[in-house]
């Protein structure tokens, strides 16, 4: 069981196309969540809490840059942390406090950045 969740976590982080497909079978979001239109202004405010760690200049140093990623990718990542499919304690806590609307708002905002 813990072996399996390890596998899922590593698949998400380093997954090849094949593994990613398997992983998506394990964790899928309903279309109703994926269709939420994020509020950019709300996303901008919420994002200020993230930018203490995720640098505005998008550099990768100990913590990944997340600007300009696909909305769906960010939405998935945050729901995966929230549901503990991804492991990092900090991100599980940060995402754990976010509702579906907030995740959508954040994803729209970060996707809009360079």
């Amino acid at each position, binding site marked *: 069981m813990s072996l399996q969740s390890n596998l899922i976590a590593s698949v998400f982080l380093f997954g090849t196309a094949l593994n990613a497909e398997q992983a998506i079978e394990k964790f899928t979001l309903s279309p109703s969540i994926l269709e939420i239109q994020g509020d950019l*202004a*709300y996303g901008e*405010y*919420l994002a*200020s*809490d993230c*930018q*203490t*760690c*995720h*640098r*505005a*200049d998008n*550099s990768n*140093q*100990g*913590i990944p840059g997340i600007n300009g990623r696909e909305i769906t990718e960010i939405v998935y990542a945050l729901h995966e942390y929230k549901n503990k499919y991804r492991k990092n*304690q*900090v991100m*599980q*806590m*940060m995402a*754990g*406090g976010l509702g579906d609307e907030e995740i959508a708002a954040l994803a729209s905002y970060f996707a809009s950045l360079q």
Partner: protein
Amino acid sequence: MSINRRSFIQTAAAVTASLATPMVMASGKPRVVVVGGGAGGATVARYIAKDSKGAIDVTLVEPSRTYYTCFFSNLYLGGFRDLGSIAHSYGNLASEYGINVVHDWAVDIDGGSKTVSLAGGGTLNYDRLVLSPGIDFVDGAVDGWDLNAQNKMPHAYKAGSQTELLKAQLASMPEGGVFAMVAPPNPYRCPPGPYERISMIAHMLKKSNPTAKIIVADPKPKFSKMGLFQEGWANHYDGMVDWIGSEFGGGNVSVNPEAMTVSIDGEETKVDACNVIPAMKAGRICEMAGITDGNWAPVSAHDMSSKVDSNIHVLGDASAQGDMPKSGFSANSQAKVAAMAIRGALTGSKVFPAKFSNTCWSLVDTNNGVKVGATYKATDEKIAKVDGFISKTGETADVRKATYEESVGWYAGITADMFG
């Protein structure tokens, strides 16, 4: 009575308005003055300037031209960082964000006329004032120690020359010498700070002076991340660290900086270096503004405004806000809530419900980081904890290394978030 008072205020306001008109025309914009350019102050100044896009005049009052972060100053003591890497200047805040940076001390605040007096003689007017002056020490908190003794027994709890001094004193300890720390009572800046410092000093002494001894006199029975630190000390610095908690008289302490002795529960020890971290209170300017209750300045959790004067916001260590620890991360998080609320009040921009977070990393040894964190929300009573986590004892080396790397990323992130 109330009608009289009211019409008086209205007349007074009308007079003030007509008198003030030429000045308002001259600048035309609402004014925010921020006192203190640290974790709270630099962040709030930058966010207000950035997000108001020039609609608000922002002045930052800070005496130092270089801000040395307390965060990672313990890593400097441990030899993991040089001093230059924790030094930051205010140049970007002025040039990129148009903030009026004034290198001076605020010496008085008049909430009635909404003015800040500067040591250099000037006066600044504000519509909203933000105070983020950090901490000062409570007089007489450690028997035998006062600020005059800070050269013999440094606190190193405001970073810079104090930290350099402590490091030099540690380096010149004789072989097998004794270092003592007098730890502070709650609440104080950075709950894990003294214990990360012990880890970093042990790391440094283990290399240069392995028979040296470390004594910690603590007025508390337990401390932040205690299990994690004690695990680290046992595994990495076996036999070096003697922590004496309140149950064993750790709170019954006096020091003699001339004789270089520390007395713990009646037993006197000759020491070669000593770090006294006294009890703390809000930076003195909060008292001058008349907004303190006891040692700290109580605030509303919704916008960090003072419970005494709602035109004054208090951030970071100086505020009494509820559940958040006094940390740089907390001050930075509170600054964003205050910036949003102040912009909303002055320019009508949209205000969302306050959300806060904090994570405190500590380095135990090379590539061995631990962390504790939580999220918070605003209630009418206080900033209230929602959820949290803490590293576990017995984690793998990989997890500890990733935690350390995260902290390095965070340091780069928060300093960029403060200084642009």
